[in-house]
Structures are given as C-alpha cells and as structure tokens.
C-alpha cells in the first residue's frame, strides 16, 4: 500500500510539473486565444495512457505512469474552465472547435494508443 501511494505521488509530481511547464512555455511564446497547451497535453496524455493500458504493463508501472503521471499530466478542470472563459468572452467559434477537437480526438487517440500498445 505504501509503495502504491509512493508510485502515484512520484508520477503525480512529474505529471503536474510537465503540464505546467508546457503551458508556461506556450504562454511565453504565443498569445492565441485558442488554448493549444491544454489541448496538446490532453491529447498526448490520452494517447499515451491508451498505449500504457494496451501494453498491459504490471500494476506498479501502471500506478506510476498511468494513475500518477498521465492522470496529473492531463486535466479536465482547466479544460472546462477555459471553455467557460471562451464563452464569457464571446468566443463561441473557438469554444465549439475546442470542445469538438478535445472530445473527438481524445477518444480516438486513446483508442489508437490502446491498439498500438496491444500489438
């Protein structure tokens, strides 16, 4: 149990830092109203978690890389908060595109990852 907790904690530490680093770097270099940084981490994370699950790696690796790292690397709350902020600022087209691309490609990439991992 203590080992499991430690694995999730270590994964969560690096997952959160990686997401923050990518979004910080993006905001420093680009100023678009489309939230590409969150979209990028979420789609990449969905694909990689799919791959991990498809590989069927053992439970400890799954806790470290899946529950810990990928769980923390991707985020649902920031995604939804950005949705609301786009809505409040009247950017309906970007909002529609962001929602559509996130859900469609998130699920497709998770599927693709699982398939490739299972090969």
């Amino acid at each position: 149990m203590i080992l499991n907790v430690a694995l999730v904690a270590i994964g969560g530490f690096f997952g959160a830092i990686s997401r923050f680093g990518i979004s910080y770097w993006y905001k420093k270099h680009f100023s678009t109203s489309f939230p590409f940084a969150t979209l990028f981490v979420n789609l990449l994370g969905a694909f990689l978690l799919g791959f991990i699950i498809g590989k069927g790696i053992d439970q400890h690796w799954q806790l470290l890389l899946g529950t810990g790292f990928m769980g923390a690397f991707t985020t649902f709350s920031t995604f939804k908060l950005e949705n609301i902020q786009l809505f409040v600022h009247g950017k309906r087209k970007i909002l529609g595109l962001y929602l559509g691309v996130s859900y469609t490609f998130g699920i497709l990439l998770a599927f693709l990852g699982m398939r490739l991992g299972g090969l």
Partner: protein
Amino acid sequence: MVYVSVGLFGVIGALLRYFLGLSIHHIWHQSFPLATLLANLIGCFLLGWITAYLSHLNKLYPYLMAGIGSGLIGSFTTFSTFSVETVKLIQASNWGTAILYVLISFWGGLWAAWMGYVFLAKKQERGSNG
C-alpha cells in the same frame, strides 16, 4: 520555485484522485466510471470558484495559487483516464453507458465550472457588498 509548488500540490491532487478511486471501488460495482466523473466535476467547480473568487490572491501568493490551481486541482482531474474509460466502455459494447458518460462529463463539467466561475462569484460579491 513555482515548479516545486505545482509539483508538490500535484502530488496531493493525484493522491486524492487515487484514494477517491479506491473508496468508490468499494461501494460502486457498476461499469459506469463514477470515480473519475466525481473527481472531474468537483475539480471543475473548485477551479472555477478559485479562479473567479480568489484571483486577487494571485499577486500576494503566486506560488500558492499556481500550486492549488494548476497543481492540486489540475492533477486531481484527468482527461486521459476519461478518454480511455470511454474507449473501454465502447469496446465492451456498452454504448449506452459510454454515451451517458461523455454527455454527463461534457455538460456536467461545463455546468460545474460555470457554477464556480460565474454564479458563486457573483453571489459572494453581492453578499460582501451588503
């Protein structure tokens, strides 16, 4: 420094999600992914509320606010698990549950973030103004 704060709070967020999953696992035996949904909706509400209502604290405690918002709540909620769970439901031909899961996440997440970001913030503004 801000990276350390985000990382340490990220540990708390990931562990809370892990423990929520373990607790739900004891009481919920359906195929519907209740644990992830709960973590995601609670996180949406809290992040909306913190962003709208505690944004003035950003200048005072930037490391703390980045830690709580991006670290704790960002790691508590997850998009990757949501996507993989949806695929698993579809692969099990559990189409009804998959569609229900996506719809509740889609609209429920928007609603929860909205409640935190707009509704509660306004209510508290009115309250503090008398």
